[in-house]
């Protein structure tokens, strides 16, 4: 098993600052999303990445603009990390017409093809085969695009995981599978229902793949391991499966307080919070406080502005309701 906790790729300071900004943005956005949920403005559900920001940020930093992200219902972070502006994402959560999908998708289905975010999928496991398909298309068309596919620890026990991993391996597809192991499914601990200790890394061998485990709360380490896997994929060397160990600070979704988790476990992981940890590293590397504070306050302003703009969005109506079932823009099933 490769354990990649220490970066082997040199990361320059500029990239490090960008990585920090990205993590702060995800942190503040998710915090705001939670507040708006408590204000009853997020009408459906929402699954936050608070605590898991280093993975979304680190992987996105290793991707090219033309690469593709496949995310889950817990996909705000992955969407924003690819450069999708905050306003349409927040407006989507609020069910407004200026939302990323005009309110038709909601929190669980964020998609911005323009930014390479090829969908957020809410049925466990389904997007792993779909990511294979995008990778197959890149391979067929001879582009060097790579598909990156995120999913959780619990997802490794569903059939689609298995089919996709084998399929990607035999066709040597340019796809990188990233398991965000946050230890928990919804309210059940994954190890209680999984035959191996590392749900992804311990299964890589079943697909002829290298077993890769990374500290998912360290953006540099994530960046590093992702960069290598993406490079391999781009070079035609086939898929990778990466298990990134992390923790969600809050509950699974909505207002779940996550009380099923032992206090010590939560405390232990909060001590490894990726955002302050990365900040400390930057300070250690000599970045001055003012630079960091500037980043933080810029992001805070961005969240504020996005909140206002999202709240000001129109309520979607009948015209949107019956639009775009079909490629011709309509929804009629008859002539």
């Amino acid at each position, binding site marked *: 098993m490769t354990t990649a906790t220490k970066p082997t790729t040199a990361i320059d300071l500029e990239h490090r600052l960008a990585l920090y900004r990205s993590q702060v943005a995800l942190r503040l956005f998710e915090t705001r999303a939670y507040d708006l949920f408590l204000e009853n403005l997020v*009408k*459906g*559900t929402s699954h936050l990445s608070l605590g898991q920001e280093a993975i979304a940020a680190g992987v996105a930093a290793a991707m090219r603009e033309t690469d593709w992200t496949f995310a889950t219902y817990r996909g705000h972070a992955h969407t924003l990390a690819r450069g999708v502006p905050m306003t349409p994402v927040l407006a989507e959560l609020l*069910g*407004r017409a200026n*939302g990323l999908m*005009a*309110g*038709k*998708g*909601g*929190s*669980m*289905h964020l998609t911005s093809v323009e930014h390479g975010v090829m969908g957020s*999928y*809410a*049925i*466990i*496991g*389904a997007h792993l085969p779909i990511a294979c398909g995008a990778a197959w298309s890149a391979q067929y068309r001879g582009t060097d695009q790579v598909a990156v596919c995120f999913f959780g620890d*619990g*997802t490794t*026990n*569903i*059939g*689609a995981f298995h089919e996709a991993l084998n399929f990607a391996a035999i066709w040597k597809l340019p796809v990188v599978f990233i398991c965000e192991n946050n230890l928990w*499914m*919804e*309210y*059940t601990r*994954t190890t*209680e*229902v*999984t035959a191996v200790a590392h749900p992804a890394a311990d299964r890589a061998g079943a697909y002829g793949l290298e077993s890769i485990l990374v500290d998912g709360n360290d953006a540099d380490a994530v960046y590093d391991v992702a960069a290598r896997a993406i490079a391999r994929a781009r070079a035609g060397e086939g898929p990778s499966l990466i298990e990134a160990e992390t923790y969600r600070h809050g509950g699974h979704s909505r207002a779940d307080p996550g009380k*099923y988790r032992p206090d010590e476990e939560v405390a232990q992981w909060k001590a490894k919070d990726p955002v302050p940890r990365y900040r400390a590293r930057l300070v250690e590397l000599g970045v001055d406080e003012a630079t960091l504070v500037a980043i933080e306050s810029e992001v805070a302003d961005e969240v504020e502005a996005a909140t206002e703009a999202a709240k000001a969005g129109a*309520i*979607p*109506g*009948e015209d*949107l*309701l*019956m639009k775009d*079932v079909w490629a011709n823009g309509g*929804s009629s*099933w008859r002539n």
Partner: protein
Amino acid sequence: MAQLTFREAIARGIAQEMRRDDSVIMLGEDVGAAGGVFKGTVGLLDEFGPVRVRDTPISEQAILGAAMGAAMTGLRPIAEIMFSDFFAVCWDIVVNEIAKSRYMTNGQMTFPLVIRSGNGGGLRFGAQHSQSVENWAMMIPGLKVVVPANATDVIGLMAASIRDDDPVIFLEAKSLYASKMDVPDGDIVDTLGSAKVLRSGADATIVSLGAMVPRALAAAEELGENGINCTVVDVRSLVPLDTSTILREVVATGRLFTVEENPRLCGWGGELSSIVSEEIFYDLDGPIVRITTPHIPLPAADALEDLAIPSVERIVTTIEKAMNS
């Protein structure tokens, strides 16, 4: 008599049967310690222990396969599929295995099992967590399909489903989970295949199911005030289907309106309509009108979802228009 929510009624119905019959066991994702994501199984782990109430991995095929294997060897499992949309990941076990195996083996096996699932929209969960799939199940020979509309029926129909020797798809309208009613004390056991006439009127018959039942009733009240008197039928189980009650009530008024949450094409309303126009055509006084969700995936935004699923207002205006034309 105690006031009970729809979700509490689920646990009570299951507990009632688990107490009387050791062969009743339960499995599903987060059904144990967490009491279910919709809190439909709260208290069952405490009362019946982890051997009878089991949390599973996210492996819907394994969940239903396990239920099927247990049923064929003498147990009466209750499996939960968290959202009915997820039937799509284990549809094979439902339709090709559970539904067909008794017939294929010429009756050598029986499958006394219940698959419970949160069904339908109203919670702004979007297209993959809001579908009404009662027609998915109804179209498969070998499945019984039960859809209660209130807490008392939940208990009685749950008990009947658990006691039934055939596989029952038990669909719980998510938008009704919080609804409350006074429920009689003591055991409640109902009958599958018995529709209920909730209201009688001479002008038209409205047939509804699950979450659409309270809406049909409210619409009938409003229509009554405007001089159109409607019978309202709660179908309660699609298979077995209480055609005798339904046909009788349609004959009595000469008009049929169906109110469905499932999308337009091949819904149970279409099936009912075709039964009526095949069997009691000459008793009809006018067109059969179906009120359904349009044939689109369900949108997430509250405003859009409310436009999609049949509302009291849409039921009223559709019936008024049809009756006055």
